């Protein structure tokens, strides 16, 4: 493939290239993290003292002891003191601040977090905590969607509802959801309910506006065509608006569920501490940053996985949108093969999926 083709504007890349780039997207940050962690002359502003030298020598830097993480300058100053006294020098290795653990430490923490039985009788395993967190997210998001989607569609369709609801929704959405934590506890209790409430508050108001906006972008000509054919308001909603916006609505939900995740950590510290956030916060307090990073990676992975699954399902639900994941496309072509559909047809399908036909796009 010629190089210029790689940078063609808004063109689908060949499968191999695409997969390679996706892999790179994850490998590159990992490589950068590894370099910062393992190459001693990159960053490493501190020294891990392995041998304090002759500790009997007095001096203003005599606080240097084995196991400390100290500034390079302090370490050098201590060795200068020791050298002047003709004593044994201190030894140490370059190190990073504890706030940045190395990849292997995080990987180990990741593994042990799952394999260690809860130390305290009555506590949950980590995977149980994670599942608990997922349930909070889904419940909060579900209630937001149950109310937010219909309201958003109404606002996007009728000026009446738009003016009635949107100004207030717009006003509330700027408010920091966590502030309502104490109120949520007072109203709904201590266990999962206030957490679900925070996720709801954090997601609902955005959702109404996003859905309203999506609804407004529906081609007006479609509605006019319906009216010309004598459709009533209810029929317009049911047969034109809702089917018309479904694919984009689905995409909106995908983005908004990510939004819900960002409220998880604050939500789970409200009321009785629970879920992955209780673990994360406790480990951060005691400065076990390997565990902290391991748990944020878990959250990232769950989020990415959910998003990919949704995209994958979306590819099947709305094939004409050409969305969906690389995996979905790949699987689809495999399935097509298995169904013994000729290769050409599978390819044609794929082409159709990725490049919607101009007629469909431009249809009034």
């Amino acid at each position, binding site marked *: 493939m010629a190089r210029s083709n790689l940078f063609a504007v808004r063109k689908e890349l060949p499968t191999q290239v695409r997969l390679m780039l996706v892999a790179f997207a994850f490998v590159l940050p990992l490589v950068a993290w590894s370099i910062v962690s393992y190459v001693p002359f990159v960053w490493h502003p501190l020294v891990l003292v392995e041998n304090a030298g002759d500790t009997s020598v007095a001096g*203003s*830097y005599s*606080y*240097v*002891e084995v196991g*400390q*993480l*100290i500034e390079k300058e*302090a370490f050098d100053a201590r060795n200068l003191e020791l050298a002047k006294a003709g004593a044994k020098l201190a030894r140490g290795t370059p190190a990073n*601040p*504890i*706030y940045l653990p190395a990849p292997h430490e995080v990987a180990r923490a990741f593994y042990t977090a799952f394999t260690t039985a809860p*130390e*305290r*009788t009555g*506590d949950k395993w980590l995977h149980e905590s994670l599942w*608990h967190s997922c*349930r909070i997210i*889904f*419940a909060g998001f*579900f209630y937001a969607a*149950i109310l937010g989607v219909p309201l958003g569609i109404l606002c996007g369709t009728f000026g009446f509802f738009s003016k009635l609801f949107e100004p207030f929704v717009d006003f509330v959405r700027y408010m920091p959801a966590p502030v309502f*934590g*104490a109120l949520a*506890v*007072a109203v709904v*209790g*201590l*266990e999962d309910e206030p957490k679900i409430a925070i996720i709801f508050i954090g997601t609902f108001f955005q959702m109404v506006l996003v859905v309203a906006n999506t609804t407004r972008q529906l081609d007006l000509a479609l509605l006019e065509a319906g009216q010309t054919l004598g459709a009533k308001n209810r029929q317009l909603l049911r047969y034109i608006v809702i*089917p018309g916006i*479904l694919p984009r609505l689905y995409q909106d939900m995908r983005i908004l569920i990510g939004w819900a995740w960002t409220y998880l950590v604050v939500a789970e*510290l*409200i*009321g*009785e*501490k629970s879920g992955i956030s*209780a*673990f994360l*916060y*406790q*480990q951060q*307090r*005691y*400065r*076990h940053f390997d565990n902290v990073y391991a748990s944020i990676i878990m959250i990232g992975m769950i989020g990415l996985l959910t998003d990919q699954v949704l995209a994958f*399902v979306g590819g*099947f*639900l*709305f094939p004409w949108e050409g969305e969906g994941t690389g995996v979905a496309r790949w699987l689809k072509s495999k399935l097509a093969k298995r169904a013994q559909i000729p290769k050409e047809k599978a390819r044609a399908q794929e082409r159709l999926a990725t490049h919607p036909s101009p007629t469909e796009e431009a249809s009034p």
Partner: protein
Amino acid sequence: MLNRRTWLSVLVAFPLALAGCQKSTPPAPQETPQAAKPAETLNAAKAQAPAPTQGKPLTIAYSDWPGWVAWEIGIQKGWFKEAGVEVDFKWFEYVPSMEAFSAGKVDAVTMTNGDALVTGSSGAPSVAILINDYSNGNDMLVAKPGINKPADLKGKKVGVEVGFVSHLLLMNALKAGGLTESDIKIVNVPTDQTPQTLKSGTVDAIVAWQPNSGAALREVPSAKAVFTSANVPGLIYDVLSVSPKSLTERREDWKKVVGVWMRIADFIKDEKNADEAAKIMSARVGLKPEEYKPLMKGTFFLDLAGNQKHFTQGDTLESIYNSTDVVNQFQVSNKVYKAAVVIEPYLDRSLVDELAKAKN
């Protein structure tokens, strides 16, 4: 059409799936107060008895401080059951625990004597029925080299959470060094961010409690604790505060809880239990036992005799009344609340006394 149908089926399936998973997580058996509530209020109304002693468990919100984590020993060893009282301990962050108490969602909360006044000034009165401990070194003023005593703070920048116990400790440190607040520059820093603030070099000293103070010392090895709560023992008492309503209605049950605490304090004070105590307590906060021991050292646990000693009127910090007076004044001058609170209703030593009498 097919697509729409699929979409619809997803819509229908989703709530069902959710409902399924919600059902699959019944609250732990001891957490059924909500289910039991209607029947109970009915019974109570019928019997006209305000004190259903065999009622739902007492709920206590506790949080991460060695003096409160110690409750864990009683929980794990089943001592509450032995004492014939059912207690549901709920594990909280400190500030949310007080919020839950203010909202009336728990019967009692563990807090400092100063915060009890703050919570009360915002409309949630409470009664401290026992003192768990006083801070004996866990709260520290950690300073960079060159500052060796509080007097050296003159003209320096100090990171502290304004209006909280650390601030109160700082005021005492300044007093000990013959300084006033105008001699230093205060930077308002949340307590859990003090270690990195000291490390970043933007301040010359910080005030924090454990584990933050310990982390600051570890992460800035050149720093030293130049003043700690061990210099002013009794400045910060940690108590169990009960809502007046629950105390009135379930006094006998609360007495049993106080009794279990005395058992816990005796257990901790016995040297040969040190390992077991550290093991149980560290499990609560996700630490290794050996990491936890230093935190216990800076906490002076109070047993029955200790409670009697400190639960008395006096004009030194040895008296919780005096200590509460001091923090009361401090909070007024820092505009935490407007006028000084009448402190007597917040402190009730009668349960401790009754236990002592029963013992003799």
